[in-house]
């Protein structure tokens, strides 16, 4: 009986891994086509055309800030240097407990302005709006509100205060390329089908040179953890999302950098205020809204890196970040479970959601079970030592190959690194990533699922910033000082939440059939 179980298990793992590998290969081909298509039909001359055009649509750049005193000034300056003919920058101070607001007021000569704020999307109470008396910063708006506990709530307040038809959501810890807006609006302008969102690649800013909020030299991070993350990001964006873009099935536009159609975002109910995966949650809401109303839509992606963010410099901070992401993923599948395997939601329900569920959500669980089972087999002498190393080598060589493909795609798109050595550094990182980094991610994901099920507190902004001024400045642990008091209400458990969902439809739009 046990032998049969082991046999079935072996076959399951083999086919699971092989189907995952095949899906990656398909995505690699798709992304190659999508990148080439993008490169063929988009030129830098387009940027110039757009910059000189009176028809360029307005864009609101929205960035929430919670206890960001270390980097807020340089980051807001970075946002103000964006090159686009018509845009505003909205910083939402989400009840920061540090000097974030004071620093902003002092640096940008802010005064309270009479602002007709309309709560199109419900948020925690709005307090006031600040505008600059310095004409240099006339496009800057600071919205001050009570802490909502999640980034989503802050984004919603920014949406309420924005005036333009499109908005770019970003984090205040992100440094954007100056041409971000011209590059990201292009898929919206170029399509005859309504484009509801556009994403672009994010990278790590840890070892980059930054002057006055502008990236002047891109390098792969020196420290191992952010370098792993750099590789992971490039793989996820260039291979994953660009591949999905070809078949209009992009599952998620990153919260760090995404451009959205404001009207659709508001009609879809805005960001789920209690969501910790606000980006994927928003994308799903918007797609569901479009399908419910039988409207054609597209989600675009561009292969350019437009955003640099500070990656977790150590395991402890990586742990917090990934735990929150995993918890958010669990929450997302819980909130939008009606979409999963639902043919009414077409590609979203039958391809994108099932793929993310099987290969991203379940993967850590299957892997963890696999490790435990292998230990068990090892202890009881069931391991076939002739074949086990072959299977491990199979997965390992595939991981290396796919990372090499991604490095080529990256080089094909734009050569951000100056030297061949820096590119090879990334390749060497790929050699150790499956052994050192991947197990950590698996563990933190499981921790995140556990946290969600047991209703542990997860507040937004759990990343500890070192700041861009000095590499030596380690900074304080914002999470321990600030976030502990962030959400004082005890969150209900998973089963309570599921029950509540059943009782009321909540703010999730049900399918109309």
């Amino acid at each position, binding site marked *: 009986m046990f032998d049969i179980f082991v046999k079935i298990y*072996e*076959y399951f793992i*083999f086919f699971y891994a092989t189907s995952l*590998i095949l899906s990656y290969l398909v995505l690699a081909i798709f992304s190659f086509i999508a990148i080439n298509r993008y*490169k*063929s*039909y988009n*030129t830098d*001359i*387009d940027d*110039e*055309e*757009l910059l000189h*055009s*009176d*028809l*360029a*649509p*307005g864009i609101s750049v929205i960035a929430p800030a919670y206890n960001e005193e270390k980097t807020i000034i340089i980051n807001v300056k970075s946002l103000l240097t964006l090159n686009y003919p018509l845009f*505003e920058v909205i910083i939402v101070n989400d009840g920061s407990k540090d000097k974030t607001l004071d620093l902003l007021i002092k640096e940008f000569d802010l*005064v309270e*302005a*009479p*602002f*007709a704020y*309309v709560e199109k999307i419900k948020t925690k109470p709005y307090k006031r709006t600040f*505008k*600059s*008396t310095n004409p240099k910063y*006339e*496009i800057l*708006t600071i919205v001050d509100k009570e802490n909502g506990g999640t980034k989503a709530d802050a984004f919603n307040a920014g949406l309420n205060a924005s*005036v*333009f038809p499109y908005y770019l959501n970003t984090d205040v810890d992100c440094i954007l390329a100056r041409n971000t807006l011209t590059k990201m609006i*292009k898929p*919206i*302008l*170029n*399509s*005859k089908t309504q484009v509801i969102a556009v994403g672009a690649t994010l990278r790590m800013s840890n070892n980059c040179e930054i002057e006055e909020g502008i990236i002047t030299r891109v390098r792969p991070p020196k420290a191992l953890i952010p370098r792993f993350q750099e590789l992971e990001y490039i793989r996820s964006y260039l291979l994953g999302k660009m591949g999905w873009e070809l078949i209009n099935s992009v599952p998620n536009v990153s919260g760090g950098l995404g451009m959205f159609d404001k009207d659709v975002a508001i009609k879809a109910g805005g960001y789920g205020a209690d969501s910790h995966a606000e980006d994927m949650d928003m994308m799903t809401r918007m797609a569901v809204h479009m399908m419910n109303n039988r409207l054609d839509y597209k989600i675009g992606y561009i292969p350019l890196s437009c955003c640099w963010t500070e990656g977790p410099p150590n395991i402890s901070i990586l742990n917090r970040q990934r735990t929150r992401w995993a918890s958010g993923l669990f929450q997302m599948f819980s909130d939008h479970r009606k979409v999963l395997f639902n043919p009414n939601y077409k590609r979203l329900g039958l391809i994108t959601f099932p793929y993310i569920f099987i290969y991203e959500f379940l993967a850590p669980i299957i892997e963890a079970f696999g490790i435990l089972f292998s230990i068990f087999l090892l202890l009881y002498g069931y391991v076939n030592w002739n*074949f086990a190393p*072959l*299977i491990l*080598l*199979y997965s390992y*060589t*595939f991981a*290396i*190959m796919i990372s*090499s*493909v991604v*490095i*080529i795609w990256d*080089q*094909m798109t734009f*050569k951000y690194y100056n030297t*061949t050595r820096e*590119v*090879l550094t990334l*390749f060497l990182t790929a050699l150790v990533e499956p052994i050192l980094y991947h197990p950590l991610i698996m563990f933190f994901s499981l921790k995140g699922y556990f946290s969600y099920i047991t209703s542990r507190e997860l507040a937004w902004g759990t990343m500890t910033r070192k700041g861009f001024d000095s590499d030596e400045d380690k900074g304080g642990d914002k999470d321990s000082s600030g976030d502990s008091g962030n959400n004082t209400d005890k969150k209900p458990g998973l089963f309570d939440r599921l029950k509540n969902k059943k009782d009321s439809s909540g703010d999730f739009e049900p399918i109309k059939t």
Partner: protein
Amino acid sequence: MGFVEWFLSFIYKIKTFPLIIQITIVLTLFFILATLALIITIYTIRRRHNRLQKILENSVPEIVKLFEDILFTDKNYSEQEIFTKFEDIVEEVNRESLDIAVTVLVNFKNEDRESEKYQLIINALGIVEHLENKFDSRSNSEKMDAFQEAFVLDLNKFDAKVLRYAYSRNQQIRSEARNSYLALSNNDPYRFFDEFDRSLSKWDEIELMQYLRLQKDRGNLEGLGKWINYSENDSLVVFLIKMVGYFKQRGIDEILMEKLEDGSELVRAAAISTLGELGIKETEQTLIDRYFTEPEICQVAIVKAIKKFNTGKSLNFLQEIFFESNNTDTKKIIAESILNYSYEGKIAFQNLKNSLSGFDLLILQHVETPLIKYK
């Protein structure tokens, strides 16, 4: 045991393995070989890139200096001199070096650095032939570059080439060719206006507007208004009506009045806005009469048109609709119109401020404060 013997025995051994393991081994070997191939490719790409960077680093400042000398000083160069000096810098005048030259010239143009001697460089280096080769290239990316570079460098010698792609099966190339034809043709620039089979994308509009600006500079814009009546494509009609307003094309008042009765609210809204842009004040009362029966998009256009007319006759109407509107965004637009509606408007605005309270008062303060740039 030699390697060959070991290898053969290994192959023989593999045959005895279960099928799954056999597949695993084959795939693993494939992954290893593919990785090696990819590393070599990465190295090749980087090597080529580094070589190009070196060329650019050395030659671009020299090329910029040479072109600046030719274009923006009084010095006289012959075509042969230009060619020789350019060749001295780049060592070989080929596709790569000509691309660099074109990029430098395009940058000058984009920086609005005007000179009458661009044509001299273009002739000397054979840039027309270079762009012709790019048009003929199999790469779509090259073709797209050629379309745009020809436009920026103001080279209207490519009618025939562009025409060839105006019926391309590739939708992007077809669209780019048709749009470019407007800029690159001297004889019949509007040829494709009646062949737009689908709605225009916003990018089409941006490109067409840019090309129309060029036609305006050439004095060829007069015929634009007639296409409003000829075209049955709503999105093109909306765009053309907007452009008539933008370029202040007179003499089509009747067509615009007709379009006020159009079935599409987008067409009506565009017509109303253009009446405002053109300052056709006789239509003010007609627009007011229509206000309460129109959808919001047209109502907003009417308010903006009245603001543009600035006759001072419709102050009561603006005040009335300010009180009646329930939409904050519309209210802001109406309040802004009142504030900027002649001297009487300013007084009425102050009176409103004195009489209102709560959120309505906040809207007025919002509109009035100069600190808020985008209302």
